[in-house]
C-alpha cells in the first residue's frame, strides 16, 4: 500500500514538564527524537537506541520508561517528564544535588537517564539497602564512574530525604504529582 508522507502525519497533544505541546508527527518518529529534535529538549540522551543503555529514560505518567522504545505518536494525551523538568541550575533537584556532591558523574552522558530512573525509586524508598540501590541502577549503563559514586549519591539523597533537611527538598517539580 502507499501513502504519501504528507498524509501519514498524526496530530498529537501531550504535556511535557507541565507544558502542553501540539505537533504533527510521522508515526515512525521515536519519542526520544521527538523530545530532542522537535521540542529541542536535548537533556534526554540517546545512547544505544534499542533499550539497553537507559540514557533516554523519561517519566511517562510518572513511571520511568525508555523514550527510544516508544513512538512519539503514542504519547498523545500523556504526561511526560524529562530531566529539564527536574530542577534548574539555581535550584537543583535533591537527586541532582546528591550526584554533584558525591561526584556521581564524569562525562555526564548517562546522568539524565540515571536521574529519571531514580526519581520514582526515591519516592518509594526511604532507606534502601545497597542491593536494592544496585538493582534500581541495573537498567542504566555508565561508561565512566564505575557506579560506586552513583550508589553513594542515591544513599545521600535518601538520607537527606529521611532527614527532610534544607538541601533543596520540595523545590523543582516532583513528577507524578503534577496536575
Amino acid at each position, binding site marked *: 500500500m502507499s501513502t504519501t508522507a504528507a498524509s501519514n502525519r498524526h496530530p498529537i497533544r501531550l504535556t511535557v514538564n507541565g507544558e502542553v505541546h501540539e505537533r504533527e508527527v510521522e*508515526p515512525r518518529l*521515536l519519542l526520544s*527524537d521527538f523530545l530532542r529534535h522537535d521540542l529541542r529538549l536535548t537533556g534526554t540522551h540517546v545512547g544505544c537506541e*534499542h*533499550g539497553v543503555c537507559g540514557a533516554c*529514560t523519561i517519566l511517562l505518567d510518572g513511571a520511568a520508561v*525508555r523514550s527510544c522504545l*516508544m513512538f512519539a505518536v*503514542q504519547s498523545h494525551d500523556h504526561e511526560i517528564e524529562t530531566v529539564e523538568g527536574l530542577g534548574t541550575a539555581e535550584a537543583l533537584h535533591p537527586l541532582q544535588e546528591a550526584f554533584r556532591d558525591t561526584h556521581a558523574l564524569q562525562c555526564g552522558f548517562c546522568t539524565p537517564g540515571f536521574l529519571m530512573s531514580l526519581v520514582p525509586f526515591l519516592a518509594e524508598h526511604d532507606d534502601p539497602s545497597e542491593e536494592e540501590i544496585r538493582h534500581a541502577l541495573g*537498567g542504566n549503563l555508565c561508561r565512566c564512574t564505575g557506579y560506586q559514586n552513583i550508589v553513594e549519591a542515591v544513599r545521600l539523597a535518601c538520607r537527606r530525604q529521611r532527614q527532610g533537611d534544607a538541601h533543596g527538598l520540595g523545590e523543582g517539580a516532583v513528577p507524578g504529582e503534577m496536575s
Partner: protein
Amino acid sequence: MKPAPFVYFAPQTVDEVMDLLRQYGDDAKVLAGGQSFIPTMSFRLAQPEVVIDLNGVEGLAGLREVDNGLHIGTMCRQRTVERSPLVARRAPLLAETMPSIAHPQIRNRGTFGGSLAHADPASELPAVVSVLNGRFRIRRQRGEDWVAADDFFISLFETAVGPEDLLLEVEIPDLAPGSGWAFQEFSRRQGDFALVGVAVVLELEGHVCRQARLALLSVGEGPVRAHLGEAALEGQPMGASLLQRVAEIVAHQDIDPPADIHASKDYRRHLAEVLTRRTLSQAVARAAAD
C-alpha cells in the same frame, strides 16, 4: 537506527483490530509494549507496512480472579503483574519470576501477553506459564480458541497465534494443594537475558511426587519441557540423591543447549544441572511447608 516508514492505526476495540488484521494480513503487526518490537524495527529486522497499536484498545489489560485461578489480559503491564497482591497470593511462582524480566523501566511498558506472543527462547514467561499449565485465549478471524501451553509454543518466535489472530488473555490456574514451586536463572547481570533458567512445579503426596512439571529457558527454540526429568520424578519419594540424578538427566538428556558468545554448550549444561537441583529442592521444601 530509525524504523522504516509505516502506517499507524490506533483502534479502540478488539473488533477493529481484527478488521485491520484481516484487511492487511501479513503486512500488519500489532504493537503491544514495544519493548521487543520497536528495537527490531529500529534495527530494520522488522519493516511492517502497517502497525496496529493495542495500547488504546479497551478490555485487554485486565487482571482478575476467576473460580480456578487468574485471568491476565494480554496488555497487562509486566510491572502490574509483578506488583499485584492478587498474583502474589494466587500465583506466587509468577510473582517470584517477574523481577527477573529485564529492568523496571522495561517492565513498566512491556506487557504480559507481548512477552508470551513474542516467544523469545530466552524469556522467562513462556517457561513459567508452561509449568503453571497456563491456557491462552486467542481471537481468530472466525471465533475464539483456548490453547494449552504445550500447544501454544511452536518454535523460535512462533506460537499458536497466527498472523491474523490476536492473543486476548492468559489463564493461570491455581496450583493443586500440596504443590511446591520454584524459579531460578543465571545471568551475568540482573536484568540481562539469562544464560539458563529453570521453572518447576511439583505435586507431592507426603514424600512422593505425584506430578512434576519442569521447563527450561535459553536452552532451545522455545521453553523446553524436561519430560525425562519429569518421568524420573513421578512416583518417587523425594530425596537428595534422586534430585541430583534428575538434574543430571535434565542437563544431559532432556536438553541440547546452543553455544554462543555468552556461554558454551557445556557451561549451559552445567548451569542447567545446578539450577535444576536447586529449584527442585526449593520446590520440595515449599511443598512440605504447604
